[in-house]
């Protein structure tokens, strides 16, 4: 039975990778740690359950990473995707510390694997978890239990009582019962607010109703909102999130990775008005994977349609839900609910501008269009080989970037500019410090691991003093 009367050293709010890295590190430093996870045990782990890898700096090949990936290249990649909207000091610290993230996780029982198929060719930069994020989550919980960490499932932290930058206790719902936990320090690792549709509506209006929430439905942002309302400094653009092109037929919550569609570079993509709106062949898909969700979110009814033909079908991973299939573009348009004459015209215009070239599915090739207002820069082949295929697309949101401001020791900053006395943060709840916009594959898990470890160390230091 959990003792709610005692004073705990560290309360970790959340149950994903960032939370557990913090809890484990604090416990290893001798602290008495309690973890409050909102989800029930089978659904534990937040969005980490759906992840697959983390991006790690390395100077030489390792068992699971090829070649090398050094600070400047990593930083350049981050700078490019964020368009400069990042905090260089925090980002570089995180990048440097990422070198030790796989080793830490391995010591916690996480098994890595060399990447095989269907992994967006990330084997140089990203270390893959064998079995994916849920296997990682299982290993971390197992390690936490061995360290004597108390884990509360079905436990939602609803309020953190903060006085002058100091947190004294948390108010929570423990298996439906109101409880309080008193603690010497708190680590907030409770994720973003992406599963809170009402909150999303504040920025996106009715469009928010058409956003699919890819990950955990428990990311309600309750702790984030509570902290921001109680004197914690805000960071990040509340309208920004990580979002990908999902199958429009996916469940509205928790559909996970398998709902994403990789067909965009091998298709043309039109909106409900049967107009193309972005260069589908701009860059290799791993680098463009994370912009398409937002692009689709900006279209009418948050819908788009990838149109392709039988030549391209095997260039991308199969989709869970089979694509619409027809012998002519006109019939396909009818199946997709689009204006048939207009789609025929758009495809014909596109086909007429396709330049001769040699197709290479995995690298930037010279197959492009010439003369279109919105070009397709690579992998442009004529769409002329029936059967034709159509995938309906919707934005699938992974996590939001609005967060709490932290310093390089993962300490939460108060609105008055002073660091909190005993509140720390790690994971999606503070990722907006580094990710002002855009995303690098596997970087969320890197931020979670790096800042989780720092938060755990710092929280344990407070306890010792």
């Amino acid at each position, binding site marked *: 039975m959990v003792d709610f009367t005692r004073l705990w050293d560290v309360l970790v709010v959340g149950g994903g990778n960032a939370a557990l890295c913090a809890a484990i590190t604090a416990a290893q430093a001798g602290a008495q740690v309690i973890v409050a996870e909102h989800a029930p045990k*089978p*659904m534990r782990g937040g969005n980490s*359950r*759906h992840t*697959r890898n983390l991006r790690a700096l390395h100077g030489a090949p390792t068992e699971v990473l090829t070649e090398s990936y050094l600070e400047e290249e990593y930083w350049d990649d981050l700078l490019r995707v964020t368009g400069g909207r990042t905090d260089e000091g925090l980002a570089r610290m995180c990048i440097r510390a990422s070198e030790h993230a796989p080793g830490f996780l391995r010591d916690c029982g996480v*098994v890595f*694997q*060399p990447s*095989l*198929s*269907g*992994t967006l060719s990330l084997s140089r930069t990203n270390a*893959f978890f*064998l*079995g*994916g*994020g*849920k*296997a990682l989550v*299982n290993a971390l919980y*197992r390690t936490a239990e061995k360290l004597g960490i108390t884990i509360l499932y079905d436990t939602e932290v609803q309020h953190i009582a903060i006085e002058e930058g100091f947190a004294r206790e948390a108010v929570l719902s423990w298996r439906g019962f109101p409880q309080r936990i008193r603690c010497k320090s708190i680590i907030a690792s409770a994720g973003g607010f992406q599963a809170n549709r009402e909150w999303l509506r504040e920025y996106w209006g009715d469009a928010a109703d058409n956003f699919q929430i890819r990950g955990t439905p428990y990311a309600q942002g309750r702790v984030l909102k509570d902290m921001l309302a109680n004197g914690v400094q805000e960071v990040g653009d509340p309208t920004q999130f990580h979002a990908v092109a999902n199958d429009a037929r996916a*469940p509205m919550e*928790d559909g*996970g*990775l*398998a*709902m994403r569609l990789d067909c965009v570079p091998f298709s043309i993509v039109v909106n409900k008005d049967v107009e193309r709106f972005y260069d589908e062949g701009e860059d290799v898909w791993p680098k463009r994977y994370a912009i398409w969700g937002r692009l689709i979110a900006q279209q009418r009814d948050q819908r788009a349609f990838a149109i392709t033909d039988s030549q391209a079908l*095997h260039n991308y*991973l*199969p*989709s*869970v839900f089979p694509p619409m299939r027809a012998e002519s573009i006109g019939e396909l348009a009818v199946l997709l609910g689009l204006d048939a004459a207009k789609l025929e015209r758009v495809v014909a215009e596109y086909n007429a501008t396709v330049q001769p070239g040699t197709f290479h599915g995995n690298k930037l090739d010279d197959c492009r269009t010439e003369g279109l207002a919105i070009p397709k820069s690579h992998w442009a082949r004529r769409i002329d080989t029936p059967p034709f295929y159509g995938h309906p697309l919707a934005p699938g949101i992974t996590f939001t970037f609005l967060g709490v401001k932290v310093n390089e020791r993962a300490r939460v900053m108060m609105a008055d500019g002073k660091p909190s006395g005993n509140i720390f943060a790690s994971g999606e709840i503070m990722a907006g410090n580094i990710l002002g916009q855009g995303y690098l594959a596997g970087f969320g898990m890197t931020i979670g691991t790096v800042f989780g470890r720092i938060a755990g160390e710092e929280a344990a230091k407070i306890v010792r003093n």
Partner: protein
Amino acid sequence: MTIESDATIEARRQMEICNACRYCEGYCAVFPAMTLRREFTSGDLTHLANLCHSCKGCYHACQYAPPHPFGINVPQTFATIRAESYAEYAWPPAMGRLFERNGTLVTLAAFLGVTLVLLLTMALQDPAILYTAQTGTGAFFRVIPYGLMVGMASLSFGFGLVAMAMGGLRFWRGTAPGAGQKPITVAPVAEAAIDILTLRNLGGGGHGCNDLDDSFAQTRRWFHHAMFYGFMLCFAATTTGAFYHHVMGWKSPHAFLSLPVQLGSWGGVLLCIGTAGLLWVKSVTDPGPVAKRLLGGEVAMLALLFLIGSTGLLLLGIRHTGAMGVMLAIHLGLVLAFFLVMPYSKMVHGVYRGLALLRNAQEKRR
């Protein structure tokens, strides 16, 4: 066109999700084999199901495992399809029904086997032979006549082998890929043999599988090795005994340090350890990925093998006493039962798993 089973339809739904996810590709042979396909015929699914060693890694790692609405549970679904394939490809086909209540069948066969041998012994020999000490050359055959022992064993075991071979042939044809059978060459056969002998697919990519829960261990692999190699040593003991009898003219009982007795003793010990261990694993494992309906047949077969091993060891221990006769009859009754039910029991998994591994080794070389 035959009507597909619910399990087959369910497995297809699951494979279509898995094929878009592929997080499990590092665990075993099933997932790389899956990625070679975009559509899954019932033959494909039967092949993949028999390739599955039920290591449960994919269940514990699955972001879509129950209670997620997708409810992905590959080990459980594949176990059901395997059982259906055992019934479908059984020979003669009518005997496929014996897989329906397999635990009952194996248990009944064991009781009937023991009863039959005891009764036959009493009917054909002097009943007193069952409780008087028999020593010296030919002691065993004074309890059960040599001709009867060898005759019944050869007939039942021989039929079992033929039935399993026919089942294997039907399975091989039934799971043929769309492109047709490929000629069987040395390299895939060697690879499949190594996979079988090492149970590579129970290695989970090096660190073991989820025998009991989401922790990794090689427990099941080692217990299965003990059982398999124990079984093989027992088989070698019998073969050596037959060789001594027919070629060398050396009649049993053999000395404790003789080859047949040594092979049989160590084989029996390993068989007991392996089967008892696997029974333990089955009884304490997380029930989530287990096909509970099939447990009866599996437990009964493990128990039968354990009893064969343990009665064999007991027989060795008491062979100079008056209890030898009864113990020999019980031991041989259990062996007879094993031979009779062999083609209609969990034992057929060895044939189908082996063929699936062979097909997989062929496919990889496309």
